[in-house]
Protein backbone atom coordinates (compact mmCIF):
# COMPACT_ATOMS: atom_id res chain seq x y z
CA UNK A 1 0.00 0.00 0.00
CA UNK A 2 2.92 2.30 0.86
CA UNK A 3 4.27 1.82 -2.66
CA UNK A 4 0.94 2.81 -4.22
CA UNK A 5 0.55 5.96 -2.17
CA UNK A 6 4.20 6.87 -2.85
CA UNK A 7 3.35 6.82 -6.55
CA UNK A 8 -0.11 8.26 -6.30
CA UNK A 9 0.85 11.32 -8.39
CA UNK A 10 1.88 9.15 -11.31
CA UNK A 11 -1.21 6.92 -10.98
CA UNK A 12 -3.52 9.90 -10.71
CA UNK A 13 -2.13 11.65 -13.79
CA UNK A 14 -2.08 8.33 -15.67
CA UNK A 15 -5.72 7.77 -14.77
CA UNK A 16 -6.59 11.30 -15.95
CA UNK A 17 -4.77 10.60 -19.24
CA UNK A 18 -6.73 7.38 -19.75
CA UNK A 19 -9.99 9.16 -18.94
CA UNK A 20 -9.28 12.08 -21.28
CA UNK A 21 -8.19 9.70 -24.06
CA UNK A 22 -11.48 7.86 -23.71
CA UNK A 23 -13.70 10.94 -23.44
CA UNK A 24 -12.02 12.91 -26.24
CA UNK A 25 -12.00 9.91 -28.58
CA UNK A 26 -15.55 9.02 -27.59
CA UNK A 27 -16.86 12.45 -28.52
CA UNK A 28 -14.93 12.55 -31.84
CA UNK A 29 -15.98 8.98 -32.70
CA UNK A 30 -19.61 9.75 -31.97
CA UNK A 31 -19.60 12.80 -34.27
CA UNK A 32 -17.65 11.08 -37.06
CA UNK A 33 -19.64 7.86 -36.67
CA UNK A 34 -22.94 9.75 -36.95
CA UNK A 35 -21.79 11.46 -40.14
CA UNK A 36 -20.66 8.09 -41.54
CA UNK A 37 -23.98 6.44 -40.66
CA UNK A 38 -25.83 9.31 -42.35
CA UNK A 39 -23.68 8.84 -45.45
CA UNK A 40 -24.34 5.11 -45.49
CA UNK A 41 -28.10 5.57 -45.64
CA UNK A 42 -28.02 8.59 -47.97
CA UNK A 43 -29.55 8.38 -51.45
CA UNK A 44 -26.22 9.47 -53.02
CA UNK A 45 -24.26 6.37 -54.14
CA UNK A 46 -20.74 7.92 -53.95
CA UNK A 47 -21.36 8.98 -50.34
CA UNK A 48 -22.62 5.50 -49.49
CA UNK A 49 -19.60 3.91 -51.16
CA UNK A 50 -17.11 6.20 -49.44
CA UNK A 51 -18.60 5.56 -45.99
CA UNK A 52 -18.75 1.80 -46.58
CA UNK A 53 -15.12 1.82 -47.67
CA UNK A 54 -14.11 3.77 -44.57
CA UNK A 55 -16.02 1.49 -42.21
CA UNK A 56 -14.66 -1.70 -43.74
CA UNK A 57 -11.06 -0.42 -43.67
CA UNK A 58 -11.07 0.74 -40.06
CA UNK A 59 -13.27 -1.99 -38.65
CA UNK A 60 -11.04 -4.69 -40.10
CA UNK A 61 -7.67 -3.17 -39.24
CA UNK A 62 -6.16 -3.98 -35.84
CA UNK A 63 -6.15 -0.89 -33.66
CA UNK A 64 -2.42 -1.25 -33.06
CA UNK A 65 -1.84 -1.01 -36.81
CA UNK A 66 -3.90 2.20 -36.94
CA UNK A 67 -1.72 3.59 -34.14
CA UNK A 68 1.43 2.53 -36.00
CA UNK A 69 0.28 4.23 -39.14
CA UNK A 70 -0.63 7.51 -37.45
CA UNK A 71 2.53 7.61 -35.34
CA UNK A 72 5.06 6.45 -37.91
CA UNK A 73 3.38 6.33 -41.30
CA UNK A 74 2.09 9.86 -41.59
CA UNK A 75 5.54 11.46 -41.48
CA UNK A 76 6.13 10.04 -44.96
CA UNK A 77 3.35 12.26 -46.27
CA UNK A 78 4.63 15.20 -44.21
CA UNK A 79 1.79 15.11 -41.75
CA UNK A 80 2.15 15.22 -38.02
CA UNK A 81 -0.20 15.68 -35.10
CA UNK A 82 0.74 18.31 -32.50
CA UNK A 83 1.30 15.76 -29.72
CA UNK A 84 1.39 12.06 -28.96
CA UNK A 85 -1.84 12.46 -27.03
CA UNK A 86 -3.69 13.92 -30.03
CA UNK A 87 -2.24 11.24 -32.29
CA UNK A 88 -3.63 8.61 -29.93
CA UNK A 89 -7.01 10.37 -29.84
CA UNK A 90 -7.04 10.46 -33.65
CA UNK A 91 -6.25 6.74 -33.91
CA UNK A 92 -8.87 5.77 -31.34
CA UNK A 93 -11.49 8.09 -32.90
CA UNK A 94 -10.94 6.91 -36.47
CA UNK A 95 -11.09 3.28 -35.39
CA UNK A 96 -14.07 3.60 -33.02
CA UNK A 97 -16.09 5.74 -35.47
CA UNK A 98 -16.52 2.69 -37.72
CA UNK A 99 -18.14 0.78 -34.84
CA UNK A 100 -20.29 3.76 -33.86
CA UNK A 101 -21.42 4.03 -37.47
CA UNK A 102 -22.44 0.38 -37.63
CA UNK A 103 -24.26 0.53 -34.29
CA UNK A 104 -26.14 3.65 -35.42
CA UNK A 105 -26.94 2.13 -38.77
CA UNK A 106 -28.57 -0.84 -37.08
CA UNK A 107 -30.59 1.68 -35.05
CA UNK A 108 -31.57 3.58 -38.19
CA UNK A 109 -32.71 0.33 -39.80
CA UNK A 110 -34.79 -0.43 -36.71
CA UNK A 111 -36.80 2.79 -37.10
CA UNK A 112 -39.98 1.83 -38.99
CA UNK A 113 -39.70 3.06 -42.60
CA UNK A 114 -43.08 4.76 -42.24
CA UNK A 115 -41.46 7.37 -39.98
CA UNK A 116 -39.12 8.58 -42.71
CA UNK A 117 -41.90 8.32 -45.30
CA UNK A 118 -44.17 10.52 -43.22
CA UNK A 119 -41.38 13.06 -42.84
CA UNK A 120 -40.63 13.08 -46.57
CA UNK A 121 -44.33 13.36 -47.34
CA UNK A 122 -44.42 16.56 -45.26
CA UNK A 123 -41.70 18.01 -47.48
CA UNK A 124 -38.67 17.50 -45.23
CA UNK A 125 -35.44 16.91 -47.14
CA UNK A 126 -33.13 13.95 -46.58
CA UNK A 127 -30.97 15.75 -44.01
CA UNK A 128 -33.95 17.15 -42.12
CA UNK A 129 -35.66 13.76 -42.09
CA UNK A 130 -32.52 12.14 -40.72
CA UNK A 131 -31.87 14.83 -38.10
CA UNK A 132 -35.37 15.45 -36.79
CA UNK A 133 -37.14 12.11 -37.20
CA UNK A 134 -34.85 9.13 -37.83
CA UNK A 135 -31.69 9.74 -35.79
CA UNK A 136 -33.43 10.80 -32.55
CA UNK A 137 -35.32 7.50 -32.63
CA UNK A 138 -32.27 5.52 -33.77
CA UNK A 139 -30.16 6.88 -30.89
CA UNK A 140 -32.67 5.48 -28.42
CA UNK A 141 -32.40 1.94 -29.67
CA UNK A 142 -28.61 2.05 -29.94
CA UNK A 143 -27.86 3.11 -26.38
CA UNK A 144 -26.93 -0.48 -25.35
CA UNK A 145 -24.66 -1.23 -28.36
CA UNK A 146 -23.11 2.25 -28.12
CA UNK A 147 -22.46 1.47 -24.47
CA UNK A 148 -20.49 -1.58 -25.57
CA UNK A 149 -18.52 0.53 -28.02
CA UNK A 150 -17.75 3.05 -25.29
CA UNK A 151 -16.51 0.40 -22.85
CA UNK A 152 -14.38 -1.20 -25.56
CA UNK A 153 -12.97 2.24 -26.33
CA UNK A 154 -12.16 2.91 -22.68
CA UNK A 155 -10.09 -0.28 -22.60
CA UNK A 156 -8.60 0.24 -26.07
CA UNK A 157 -6.96 3.43 -24.80
CA UNK A 158 -4.36 1.08 -23.28
CA UNK A 159 -2.81 0.65 -26.74
CA UNK A 160 -1.56 4.23 -26.38
CA UNK A 161 0.79 2.95 -23.67
CA UNK A 162 2.84 1.30 -26.38
CA UNK A 163 3.27 4.66 -28.07
CA UNK A 164 4.77 6.63 -25.20
CA UNK A 165 1.53 8.06 -23.86
CA UNK A 166 1.60 7.74 -20.08
CA UNK A 167 -1.80 6.24 -19.40
CA UNK A 168 -2.79 3.68 -16.76
CA UNK A 169 -1.26 0.77 -18.64
CA UNK A 170 1.99 2.67 -19.12
CA UNK A 171 1.98 3.41 -15.39
CA UNK A 172 1.49 -0.30 -14.73
CA UNK A 173 4.53 -1.15 -16.83
CA UNK A 174 6.66 1.52 -15.24
CA UNK A 175 5.74 0.69 -11.63
CA UNK A 176 6.05 -3.04 -12.20
CA UNK A 177 9.57 -2.52 -13.53
CA UNK A 178 10.37 -0.30 -10.57
CA UNK A 179 9.31 -2.81 -7.95
CA UNK A 180 8.36 -6.32 -9.00
CA UNK A 181 7.44 -7.23 -5.43
CA UNK A 182 4.50 -4.85 -5.57
CA UNK A 183 3.17 -6.24 -8.84
CA UNK A 184 -0.15 -7.41 -7.39
CA UNK A 185 -0.85 -4.11 -5.66
CA UNK A 186 -0.07 -2.17 -8.83
CA UNK A 187 -2.27 -4.50 -10.86
CA UNK A 188 -5.11 -3.96 -8.42
CA UNK A 189 -4.71 -0.19 -8.55
CA UNK A 190 -4.67 -0.10 -12.35
CA UNK A 191 -7.62 -2.46 -12.76
CA UNK A 192 -9.50 -0.35 -10.25
CA UNK A 193 -8.66 2.70 -12.35
CA UNK A 194 -10.27 1.13 -15.42
CA UNK A 195 -13.25 -0.10 -13.44
CA UNK A 196 -13.87 3.40 -12.09
CA UNK A 197 -14.31 4.48 -15.71
CA UNK A 198 -16.25 1.52 -17.11
CA UNK A 199 -18.53 0.49 -14.24
CA UNK A 200 -20.22 3.87 -13.78
CA UNK A 201 -20.55 3.94 -17.57
CA UNK A 202 -22.52 0.71 -17.54
CA UNK A 203 -24.73 2.17 -14.84
CA UNK A 204 -25.09 5.49 -16.69
CA UNK A 205 -25.98 3.66 -19.90
CA UNK A 206 -28.83 1.90 -18.09
CA UNK A 207 -30.08 5.22 -16.72
CA UNK A 208 -29.93 6.86 -20.15
CA UNK A 209 -31.62 3.84 -21.67
CA UNK A 210 -34.54 4.08 -19.25
CA UNK A 211 -34.74 7.84 -19.63
CA UNK A 212 -34.98 7.85 -23.42
CA UNK A 213 -36.96 4.62 -23.72
CA UNK A 214 -39.56 5.22 -26.37
CA UNK A 215 -43.21 4.64 -25.63
CA UNK A 216 -44.61 2.38 -28.32
Amino acid at each position, binding site marked *: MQFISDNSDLLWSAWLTTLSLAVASGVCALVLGTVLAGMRVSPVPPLRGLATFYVEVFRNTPLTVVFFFLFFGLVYVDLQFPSRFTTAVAALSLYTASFVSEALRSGINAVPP*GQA*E*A*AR*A*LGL*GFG*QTLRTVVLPQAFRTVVPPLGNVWIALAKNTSIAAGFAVTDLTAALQRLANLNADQLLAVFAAVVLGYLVITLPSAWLIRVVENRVA*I*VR
Partner: protein
Amino acid sequence: MSGGPLVRLSGVNKWFGELHVLQDVDLSIDRGEVVVVIGPSGSGKSTLCRTINRLEAIQQGEITIDGQRLPEEGRALARLRSDVGMVFQSFNLFAHKTILENVTLGPVKVRRQSRAESQRRARELLDRVGVGAQADKYPAQLSGGQQQRVAIARALAMDPKVMLFDEPTSALDPEMINEVLDVMTSLARDGMTMVVVTHEMGFARRAANRVVFMDGGRIVESADPETFFTRPRSERAKDFLSKILDH
Protein backbone atom coordinates in the same frame (compact mmCIF):
# COMPACT_ATOMS: atom_id res chain seq x y z
CA MET B 1 -51.71 28.32 -60.78
CA SER B 2 -53.26 26.94 -63.95
CA GLY B 3 -56.84 26.15 -64.81
CA GLY B 4 -56.22 22.52 -65.77
CA PRO B 5 -56.65 19.48 -63.55
CA LEU B 6 -54.87 19.64 -60.19
CA VAL B 7 -53.39 16.16 -60.45
CA ARG B 8 -52.77 14.50 -63.76
CA LEU B 9 -51.30 11.07 -64.47
CA SER B 10 -50.69 10.17 -68.07
CA GLY B 11 -49.37 6.90 -69.43
CA VAL B 12 -47.98 5.89 -66.04
CA ASN B 13 -46.19 2.54 -65.88
CA LYS B 14 -44.42 1.03 -62.93
CA TRP B 15 -42.75 -2.29 -62.31
CA PHE B 16 -41.65 -3.96 -59.08
CA GLY B 17 -39.01 -6.19 -60.62
CA GLU B 18 -40.96 -8.40 -63.02
CA LEU B 19 -44.31 -7.36 -61.64
CA HIS B 20 -46.07 -4.74 -63.75
CA VAL B 21 -47.95 -2.97 -60.95
CA LEU B 22 -49.22 0.07 -62.85
CA GLN B 23 -50.16 -0.35 -66.50
CA ASP B 24 -50.81 2.69 -68.71
CA VAL B 25 -52.65 4.57 -66.00
CA ASP B 26 -54.32 7.83 -67.03
CA LEU B 27 -56.16 9.83 -64.42
CA SER B 28 -56.89 13.48 -63.90
CA ILE B 29 -58.32 15.00 -60.78
CA ASP B 30 -59.91 18.42 -60.73
CA ARG B 31 -59.76 20.99 -57.98
CA GLY B 32 -62.17 20.11 -55.19
CA GLU B 33 -62.82 16.67 -56.58
CA VAL B 34 -62.96 13.64 -54.29
CA VAL B 35 -61.79 10.52 -56.06
CA VAL B 36 -62.14 7.19 -54.29
CA VAL B 37 -59.94 4.38 -55.59
CA ILE B 38 -61.18 0.87 -54.91
CA GLY B 39 -60.18 -2.59 -56.03
CA PRO B 40 -58.97 -5.95 -54.77
CA SER B 41 -55.66 -6.21 -52.87
CA GLY B 42 -52.69 -6.18 -55.18
CA SER B 43 -54.57 -4.19 -57.79
CA GLY B 44 -52.05 -1.34 -57.53
CA LYS B 45 -54.32 1.20 -55.86
CA SER B 46 -51.96 1.96 -52.97
CA THR B 47 -49.03 2.16 -55.34
CA LEU B 48 -51.00 4.59 -57.51
CA CYS B 49 -51.64 6.77 -54.48
CA ARG B 50 -47.98 6.70 -53.48
CA THR B 51 -46.71 7.67 -56.93
CA ILE B 52 -48.57 10.98 -56.72
CA ASN B 53 -46.06 12.38 -54.21
CA ARG B 54 -43.28 10.15 -55.53
CA LEU B 55 -42.94 7.95 -52.46
CA GLU B 56 -42.85 5.43 -55.30
CA ALA B 57 -40.96 6.41 -58.43
CA ILE B 58 -42.51 5.55 -61.80
CA GLN B 59 -40.59 4.18 -64.77
CA GLN B 60 -42.74 5.56 -67.57
CA GLY B 61 -45.27 8.31 -68.04
CA GLU B 62 -45.78 11.67 -66.46
CA ILE B 63 -47.38 12.99 -63.29
CA THR B 64 -48.13 16.68 -62.86
CA ILE B 65 -49.47 18.50 -59.85
CA ASP B 66 -50.97 21.93 -60.44
CA GLY B 67 -49.45 21.91 -63.91
CA GLN B 68 -45.98 21.18 -62.59
CA ARG B 69 -44.19 17.99 -63.46
CA LEU B 70 -43.06 15.92 -60.44
CA PRO B 71 -39.35 16.63 -59.92
CA GLU B 72 -36.93 13.71 -59.75
CA GLU B 73 -35.36 14.23 -56.33
CA GLY B 74 -33.98 16.85 -54.00
CA ARG B 75 -35.27 20.22 -52.91
CA ALA B 76 -37.80 20.71 -55.70
CA LEU B 77 -39.44 17.39 -54.89
CA ALA B 78 -39.54 18.21 -51.18
CA ARG B 79 -41.20 21.56 -51.97
CA LEU B 80 -43.81 19.86 -54.09
CA ARG B 81 -44.46 17.20 -51.46
CA SER B 82 -45.14 19.92 -48.91
CA ASP B 83 -48.21 20.85 -50.99
CA VAL B 84 -49.48 17.25 -51.04
CA GLY B 85 -50.88 15.94 -47.77
CA MET B 86 -50.60 12.23 -47.11
CA VAL B 87 -52.37 10.00 -44.61
CA PHE B 88 -51.03 6.46 -44.21
CA GLN B 89 -52.68 3.19 -43.27
CA SER B 90 -50.37 2.82 -40.25
CA PHE B 91 -50.70 6.51 -39.19
CA ASN B 92 -46.90 6.97 -39.01
CA LEU B 93 -47.03 9.64 -36.33
CA PHE B 94 -43.54 10.55 -35.15
CA ALA B 95 -43.22 8.28 -32.12
CA HIS B 96 -40.72 10.48 -30.26
CA LYS B 97 -42.73 13.68 -30.56
CA THR B 98 -45.88 14.84 -28.80
CA ILE B 99 -49.15 15.20 -30.71
CA LEU B 100 -48.66 18.95 -30.88
CA GLU B 101 -45.06 18.58 -32.10
CA ASN B 102 -46.20 16.11 -34.73
CA VAL B 103 -48.50 18.75 -36.18
CA THR B 104 -46.07 21.68 -35.90
CA LEU B 105 -43.01 19.89 -37.30
CA GLY B 106 -43.82 20.46 -40.96
CA PRO B 107 -44.89 24.12 -40.67
CA VAL B 108 -41.81 24.97 -38.57
CA LYS B 109 -39.18 22.99 -40.51
CA VAL B 110 -40.54 23.29 -44.03
CA ARG B 111 -42.66 26.45 -44.07
CA ARG B 112 -40.42 28.29 -41.59
CA GLN B 113 -43.44 29.38 -39.57
CA SER B 114 -42.85 30.74 -36.08
CA ARG B 115 -43.31 28.27 -33.25
CA ALA B 116 -46.12 30.31 -31.68
CA GLU B 117 -48.05 30.68 -34.93
CA SER B 118 -47.65 26.99 -35.83
CA GLN B 119 -48.82 25.93 -32.35
CA ARG B 120 -51.87 28.16 -32.49
CA ARG B 121 -52.82 26.70 -35.85
CA ALA B 122 -52.02 23.13 -34.69
CA ARG B 123 -54.33 23.43 -31.69
CA GLU B 124 -57.05 24.78 -33.98
CA LEU B 125 -56.67 21.76 -36.29
CA LEU B 126 -56.49 19.28 -33.40
CA ASP B 127 -59.74 20.73 -32.05
CA ARG B 128 -61.27 20.45 -35.48
CA VAL B 129 -60.51 16.72 -35.67
CA GLY B 130 -61.59 16.27 -32.06
CA VAL B 131 -58.29 15.46 -30.32
CA GLY B 132 -57.45 18.89 -28.91
CA ALA B 133 -57.30 17.49 -25.38
CA GLN B 134 -54.51 15.06 -26.33
CA ALA B 135 -52.04 17.71 -27.57
CA ASP B 136 -49.34 16.98 -24.99
CA LYS B 137 -49.48 13.19 -25.13
CA TYR B 138 -47.33 10.87 -27.22
CA PRO B 139 -48.78 8.92 -30.16
CA ALA B 140 -48.59 5.57 -28.36
CA GLN B 141 -50.94 6.90 -25.67
CA LEU B 142 -53.72 7.48 -28.20
CA SER B 143 -56.17 5.05 -29.77
CA GLY B 144 -55.78 4.19 -33.44
CA GLY B 145 -58.69 6.38 -34.42
CA GLN B 146 -57.26 9.32 -32.51
CA GLN B 147 -53.82 8.78 -34.04
CA GLN B 148 -55.26 8.77 -37.53
CA ARG B 149 -57.16 12.00 -36.87
CA VAL B 150 -53.90 13.55 -35.64
CA ALA B 151 -52.27 12.35 -38.86
CA ILE B 152 -54.97 14.17 -40.82
CA ALA B 153 -54.39 17.33 -38.77
CA ARG B 154 -50.64 17.00 -39.39
CA ALA B 155 -51.22 16.88 -43.14
CA LEU B 156 -53.71 19.78 -43.02
CA ALA B 157 -51.22 21.95 -41.14
CA MET B 158 -49.27 22.31 -44.39
CA ASP B 159 -52.34 23.75 -46.18
CA PRO B 160 -52.02 21.14 -48.90
CA LYS B 161 -53.52 21.55 -52.35
CA VAL B 162 -54.52 17.90 -52.38
CA MET B 163 -54.76 15.15 -49.77
CA LEU B 164 -53.86 11.53 -50.39
CA PHE B 165 -55.37 8.85 -48.16
CA ASP B 166 -53.76 5.42 -48.43
CA GLU B 167 -56.25 3.01 -46.82
CA PRO B 168 -56.70 5.31 -43.82
CA THR B 169 -59.12 3.05 -41.94
CA SER B 170 -57.73 -0.40 -42.76
CA ALA B 171 -55.68 -0.65 -39.56
CA LEU B 172 -58.49 0.53 -37.29
CA ASP B 173 -60.87 -1.30 -34.99
CA PRO B 174 -64.41 -1.19 -36.39
CA GLU B 175 -65.73 1.26 -33.83
CA MET B 176 -63.00 3.76 -34.66
CA ILE B 177 -63.51 3.75 -38.39
CA ASN B 178 -66.41 6.15 -38.34
CA GLU B 179 -64.66 8.83 -36.32
CA VAL B 180 -62.00 8.99 -39.02
CA LEU B 181 -64.47 8.80 -41.89
CA ASP B 182 -66.49 11.64 -40.35
CA VAL B 183 -63.43 13.89 -40.40
CA MET B 184 -62.75 12.91 -44.01
CA THR B 185 -66.36 13.51 -45.03
CA SER B 186 -66.30 16.99 -43.53
CA LEU B 187 -63.03 17.72 -45.35
CA ALA B 188 -64.61 16.62 -48.60
CA ARG B 189 -67.60 18.85 -47.93
CA ASP B 190 -65.27 21.80 -47.32
CA GLY B 191 -63.96 21.39 -50.86
CA MET B 192 -60.60 19.67 -50.27
CA THR B 193 -59.24 17.83 -53.29
CA MET B 194 -58.85 14.21 -52.17
CA VAL B 195 -57.61 10.90 -53.48
CA VAL B 196 -58.81 8.15 -51.18
CA VAL B 197 -57.79 4.51 -51.43
CA THR B 198 -60.25 2.61 -49.29
CA HIS B 199 -62.49 -0.38 -48.79
CA GLU B 200 -65.19 1.77 -47.18
CA MET B 201 -67.98 1.66 -49.74
CA GLY B 202 -70.27 3.74 -47.53
CA PHE B 203 -67.74 6.57 -47.62
CA ALA B 204 -67.39 6.20 -51.39
CA ARG B 205 -71.15 6.53 -51.86
CA ARG B 206 -71.45 9.42 -49.44
CA ALA B 207 -68.44 11.59 -50.20
CA ALA B 208 -66.96 10.68 -53.58
CA ASN B 209 -67.47 12.62 -56.78
CA ARG B 210 -65.97 9.75 -58.68
CA VAL B 211 -65.10 6.14 -58.04
CA VAL B 212 -62.10 4.62 -59.80
CA PHE B 213 -62.00 0.83 -59.90
CA MET B 214 -58.60 -0.80 -60.35
CA ASP B 215 -57.65 -4.36 -61.08
CA GLY B 216 -54.33 -5.90 -62.12
CA GLY B 217 -52.58 -2.53 -62.28
CA ARG B 218 -55.12 -0.96 -64.62
CA ILE B 219 -57.96 1.45 -64.15
CA VAL B 220 -60.87 -0.72 -65.23
CA GLU B 221 -63.70 1.65 -64.60
CA SER B 222 -64.24 5.24 -63.57
CA ALA B 223 -67.69 6.64 -62.83
CA ASP B 224 -69.74 8.62 -60.35
CA PRO B 225 -70.60 6.54 -57.25
CA GLU B 226 -74.30 6.20 -58.09
CA THR B 227 -73.57 4.76 -61.53
CA PHE B 228 -70.69 2.62 -60.34
CA PHE B 229 -72.51 0.97 -57.46
CA THR B 230 -75.82 0.41 -59.26
CA ARG B 231 -74.76 -0.20 -62.87
CA PRO B 232 -71.10 -1.23 -63.06
CA ARG B 233 -70.08 -1.83 -66.67
CA SER B 234 -67.19 -4.29 -66.40
CA GLU B 235 -67.56 -7.92 -65.36
CA ARG B 236 -64.61 -7.52 -63.00
CA ALA B 237 -66.29 -4.67 -61.13
CA LYS B 238 -69.60 -6.54 -60.94
CA ASP B 239 -67.80 -9.53 -59.51
CA PHE B 240 -65.91 -7.39 -56.99
CA LEU B 241 -69.04 -5.57 -55.88
CA SER B 242 -71.06 -8.74 -55.51
CA LYS B 243 -68.38 -10.10 -53.20
CA ILE B 244 -68.19 -7.08 -50.91
CA LEU B 245 -71.75 -5.78 -50.96
CA ASP B 246 -73.42 -9.10 -50.13
CA HIS B 247 -72.00 -9.02 -46.62
